[in-house]
């Protein structure tokens, strides 16, 4: 019998090897996949934007001679003591518990050396963190783990967390293996049990209640501290408007690439909007209310380089915040741990089982031996360097666009490489003066 001609084996796009492995994993375990980090799928991002630079009608600043300022003040609306930062890049909220004490110390050291703030997380404030952070933002979360008025008063700002880009509408889960005695004591719970963090605040619902809650926080702290409201990238126009209505000094807007310590993969990848899609609606809300630059906007979720910083500022943000990138700067997912990542079934750059507490880099763990691997002084220096480089990169771009302050960057300085990015960022598609949705076309 003649042999029938064969076609090449064809893999399904719909049932890819990655999807099939998830189906097999689900069938094997009966539970959804939990991981750390933010969305890994490709979404329109800052890479899809370009700066135009100077030309005959736009004069650049001399690279090493003319000043390009980077300072930013957060909390100018109501707070008696706004936050003064040297650079427009802050460190996002990450908890002691999900991170080791050494990692929190390193974040404080690096941020302080660079002249910026760091932020607590769902687990309260540690003395190491307070001691090593010249500017510390204290998160006010639904769980209220470790919440107390003394820490509230010794914070430099308060961030009411309504949502998070990785999981808008979701709570948290710190698995039992990371609940050491110290973590448990801070959270008023037994050692070794899974700690669920509620998704809704226990004592307010909706913007009218939030306004009163903010009044209470201001009364407790003598109206000194800026009050931030952090929202996930769900409905950025309305959430920003409601945050302003509720009395926020600062709105922190976190897109879907923003990381989390641990949540369901399906949540991270399928709920929320890309950071790029969130900025312009939020800025529009501020402009519609006449509050742009009066209520500051901090954008987070996938900020990696000075170019990302510059692009976020050009779209209207006052500052950005980094979490995942800061951890990478400390040493997370470093190739030097490759053999250990492989033992954990992962590889450099892909390791995201932060909830398991076995991080070879000693960052997302409470294991005393693993924690020792992270030298907080050296790691803090790495973070400072990284923040400095991003700032220099941002200044480089701003000078090329003729700006004496990075806040002078504007949408007019940008073009988009794709239709999607043009529509989301509301800047023209490269080579045109058009973007989808622009009136008159």
């Amino acid at each position, binding site marked *: 019998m003649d042999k029938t001609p064969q076609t090449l084996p064809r893999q399904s796009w719909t049932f890819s090897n990655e999807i099939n492995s998830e189906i097999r994993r689900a069938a094997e*375990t*009966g*539970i959804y996949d939990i991981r750390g980090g933010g969305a890994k799928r490709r979404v329109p991002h800052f890479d899809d934007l370009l700066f135009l630079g100077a030309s005959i009608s736009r004069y650049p600043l001399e690279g090493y001679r003319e000043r390009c300022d980077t300072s930013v003040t957060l909390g100018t609306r109501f707070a008696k003591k706004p936050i003064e930062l040297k650079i427009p890049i802050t460190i996002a909220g990450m908890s002691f518990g999900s991170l080791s004490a050494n990692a929190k110390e390193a974040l404080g050291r690096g941020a302080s050396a660079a002249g910026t703030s760091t932020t607590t997380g769902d687990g309260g404030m540690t003395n190491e963190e307070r001691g090593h952070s010249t500017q510390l933002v204290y998160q006010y979360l639904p*769980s*209220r783990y470790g*919440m*107390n*008025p*003394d820490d*509230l008063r010794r914070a430099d700002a308060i961030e009411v967390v309504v949502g998070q880009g990785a999981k808008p509408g979701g709570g948290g*889960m710190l*698995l*039992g293996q990371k609940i050491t005695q110290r973590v448990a004591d801070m*959270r*008023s*719970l*037994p050692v*070794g*049990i*899974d700690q*669920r963090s*509620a998704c809704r605040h*226990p*004592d*307010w619902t909706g913007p009218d*209640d939030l306004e*009163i*809650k903010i*009044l*209470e926080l201001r*009364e*407790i*702290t*003598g*109206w000194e501290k800026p009050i931030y409201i952090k929202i996930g990238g769900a409905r950025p126009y309305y959430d920003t408007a409601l945050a302003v209505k509720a009395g926020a000094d600062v709105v922190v807007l976190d897109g879907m690439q923003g990381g989390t310590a641990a949540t369901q993969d399906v949540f991270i990848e399928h709920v929320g909007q890309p950071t790029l899609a969130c900025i312009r609606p939020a800025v529009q809300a501020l402009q519609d209310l006449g509050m742009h630059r009066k209520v500051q906007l901090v954008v987070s979720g996938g900020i990696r380089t000075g170019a990302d910083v510059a692009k976020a500022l050009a779209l209207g943000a006052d500052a950005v915040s980094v979490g995942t990138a800061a951890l990478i700067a400390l040493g997370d997912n470093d190739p030097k741990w490759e053999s250990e990542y492989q033992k954990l079934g992962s590889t450099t750059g892909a390791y995201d089982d932060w909830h398991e507490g076995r991080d070879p880099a000693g960052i997302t763990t409470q294991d005393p031996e693993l924690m020792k691997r992270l030298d907080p002084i050296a790691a803090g220096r790495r973070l400072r360097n990284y923040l400095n480089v991003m700032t220099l990169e941002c200044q480089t771009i701003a000078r090329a666009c003729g700006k004496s302050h990075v806040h002078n960057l504007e949408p007019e300085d940008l073009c988009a490489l794709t239709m999607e990015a043009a529509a989301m960022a509301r800047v023209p598609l490269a080579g045109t003066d058009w973007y989808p949705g622009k009136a008159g076309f």
Partner: protein
Amino acid sequence: MPTQLDMASTELRDVNATLQAAAKAQVNEPYVIINPRGSHAMACGLDGPLNVTVKGSTGYYTAGMNKEASITVEGSAGPGVAENMMSGTVTIEGDASQYAGATGHGGLLNIKGNASSRCGISMKGIDIVVHGNIGHMSAFMAQKGNLVVLGDAGDALGDSLYEARLFVRGTVKSLGADCVEKEMRPEHLAILKELLDRAGAKAKPEEFKRYGSSRTLYNFHIDNASAY
């Protein structure tokens, strides 16, 4: 003579600043607030021994985050009374709205009337005594401390409970996930007696039932997925 603060003519900020300064100065003097008119965030953030009496009803977050002070509301209190209290005593002569004592870490919240839904939500060490009834979802995710109810409890009492102890004298409409009735042992009767005495409640410990966590949801297991 107590120092009187009249909220008909004094701004909230000035009232709270006066009370906060007096508490911090450890003067332990009596203050009386008149014409509260349902103001929010009244007498919050006190950090020291001070006696405050509010002549009338208050709004949201009365006595929020209290430390050491004794605050009495001679009326009813709005949502979130004594939220995140650390220590001291807060007494409500009337009823309390939602979230009374939410996330409280310590001290005594003594509600002479009824408390609405979510009383003691996420409590972390506070003691709450309610002389009347409490609403649904009370002690949701309650971590630590004691909730004593002389009347009845609404639906889903103690849902997703951790280590807080719940004592109810009347009926419980339903228990939440992972909350079960537990044996009342001598040590529980002693705790309850001490709490009833502190709250001036006329009830016998033996009349109460104790509820607590069955601890089956403490570590996630797929067989318990339907309970979440």
